[in-house]
């Protein structure tokens, strides 16, 4: 199945596809800001081949270093993997942002040999989540809490069930809906996010707090929120759907 993302608003919520686009943009700005402000040692970053010069200039002005790692083919919406690039076709540069050249070298080497522990640590992920990802990703490339289904309650910061549509507070796949490490990191991300657009950040938080139904079957995940139904391609559960009925535990703050 080719990459696709589909967002189908419910009656009365026509504005949500546009709003999700803005939320995705806010998340991307936050991810960049997190390395710029020194909250992480590294951040992965994609640059469209057509805007390389402008992006490199911006990165330089922000005191960061960009190290390209590989090319990635264009895709629509959301991709679980980097796509190969055919000669003459457009592409993104996939690379890493760091503060120092030394960190860039360390990350580059970790990426080359597939050292997920080092990569996870540099990206600022909790160790438990890095371990979870390392263990599950080779088996299931969309590892949303692979051992859970049915009613699930957890931190909005840990909710990655809307990431296909650009909505997330943290960049990593959390090991559990109640991962305290994720919550702690997520609070920093959310603070930075709010500084850029408080209203939109709060809306994103509320959306991630649920209710959400995540339903994965036959290679398509269908995510229902009060405002829209989103679809994308995913790991193909064959025999029966895996369904998570999510309710977020909001932070008292």
């Amino acid at each position: 199945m080719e990459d696709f993302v589909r967002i189908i608003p419910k009656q009365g919520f026509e504005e949500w596809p546009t709003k999700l686009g803005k939320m995705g943009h806010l998340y991307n700005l936050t991810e960049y800001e997190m390395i710029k402000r020194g909250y992480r040692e590294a951040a992965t970053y994609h640059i469209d081949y057509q805007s390389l010069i402008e992006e490199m200039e911006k990165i330089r002005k922000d005191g960061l270093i960009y190290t390209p790692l590989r090319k990635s083919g264009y895709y629509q919406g959301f991709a679980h993997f980097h796509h190969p690039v055919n000669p003459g076709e457009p592409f993104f540069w996939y690379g890493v942002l760091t503060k120092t050249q030394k960190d860039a070298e360390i990350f580059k080497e970790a990426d080359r040999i597939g050292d997920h522990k080092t990569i996870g640590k540099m990206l600022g992920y909790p160790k438990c989540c890095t371990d979870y990802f390392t263990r599950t990703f080779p088996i299931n490339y969309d590892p949303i809490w692979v051992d859970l289904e049915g009613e699930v309650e957890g931190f909005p910061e840990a909710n990655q069930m809307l990431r296909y549509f650009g909505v997330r507070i943290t960049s990593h796949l959390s090991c559990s809906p109640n991962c305290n490490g994720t919550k702690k990191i997520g609070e920093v991300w959310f603070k930075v996010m709010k500084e850029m657009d408080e209203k939109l950040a709060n809306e994103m938080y509320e959306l991630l707090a649920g209710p959400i139904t995540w339903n994965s079957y036959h290679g398509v995940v269908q995510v229902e929120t009060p405002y829209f139904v989103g679809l994308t391609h995913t790991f193909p559960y064959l025999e029966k759907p895996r369904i998570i009925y999510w309710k977020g535990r909001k932070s008292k703050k």
Partner: protein
Amino acid sequence: MLLIKPFLGCNLDCKYCYERNYRRKYKPKADYNLDLVLKRMEEFKDLEMSLHGGESLAMPKKDVEKIFEKMYQLRRRSGIQTNGTLIDEEYIEMFKKYKTDVGISFDGPGILSEFRDPRAFNLDKTIERLVKEGINTSIIIVISKSNAGTDERLKKLKEYLLELEKLKVSGRLNPCMGASDYELDEKRLIEVYLDLAKFCLERNLRWSPFEDIIHGLQGKSRVCTFSGCDIFSTPSATVVLGDGSISNCMRSNQEYVLLRQPVKMDIRNEILAETPQKFGGCQDCKYWTACYGGCPSGAINGDWRNRTYLCLLWKALFQYFENILRLVEYPSILCQGTYVQRGQIPAGGHGDSEHGDSGHGDSEHGDWTDHGDSENPTIEIQRRDQEHGDAPHGDGIQHGDAPHGDWGDHQDLG
């Protein structure tokens, strides 16, 4: 087909109605914005149009007339699907004035309509009257326990089909779906439909789904049920709601209404073609290119990512008509084993409107339900070039609805 549904309420409460859940939850009111609805109609003026519901004749007559007037202005005809119980002299005059094609939902006289309302028991008289007045009339009959649960009732139904034939009226025989208390069990359903297929074939009665089954086998235009529908786009039916929203055909909208996706995608086809039959798919099914897994609103376990739960019924009918086609030495396309490119499936009509609707202008002749357009009602022997490609992709799917901006996430951990 543009289905105009300003009012989703109904004066009846048919037990198997697919809008029943929605209606019970939201208790629709006649609070539509008529100006907005009329404006929307102009935007979709290239589509055939039908006033739909709920029960559209339960709206104020002046509003119904405004909609007919607009249809007539845009299309030089108008159309309606109605339960028929509110048709009176004024409406008959209106139908004549605006050249309205009238589709009546009627399960047969008297007890055959048991799961509907007593007010709907004697619509045969209304149908006769419409025909007498020269109004183009067709029927949707829902096959359920009420009209086919016993041999006696089935016999009565067949007698009524013959009565309709005298009036030159036909339409669709739709299986009751999603209402387990009222629909026939699988064995009986197959038995009934095979019986009806034989009955119609022997008497040259032109009812769907039989001609759609034949058209499927022939690779011709047929009803949406067998055309590889995208449930979020429903290309055969665009719905205008009372607030001006554009939705899909509404069959999937049980608890809430989803807005229609303007671009059709082939996701379900891809899933079903690749998923083994024992897991709800259609892999290696001989009738794949004639059926495409059936209507997603009737999918196994209510999940559009599965094939229809009526699979065995459709297979039985495909097999029956395949044998007939073989007898007349018609080379059906189904044994080619090719994956037909989506753009090449002849698009048919929607199975839920007047006239059995496989022939609203965009199909290639021979739609048996569009009565009066063929002198020879026997199986049409018209060889169609088998141009369908065997490429699984490359069909110009436009993934234009993504919010983008989410490309920073993957491979964060390599």
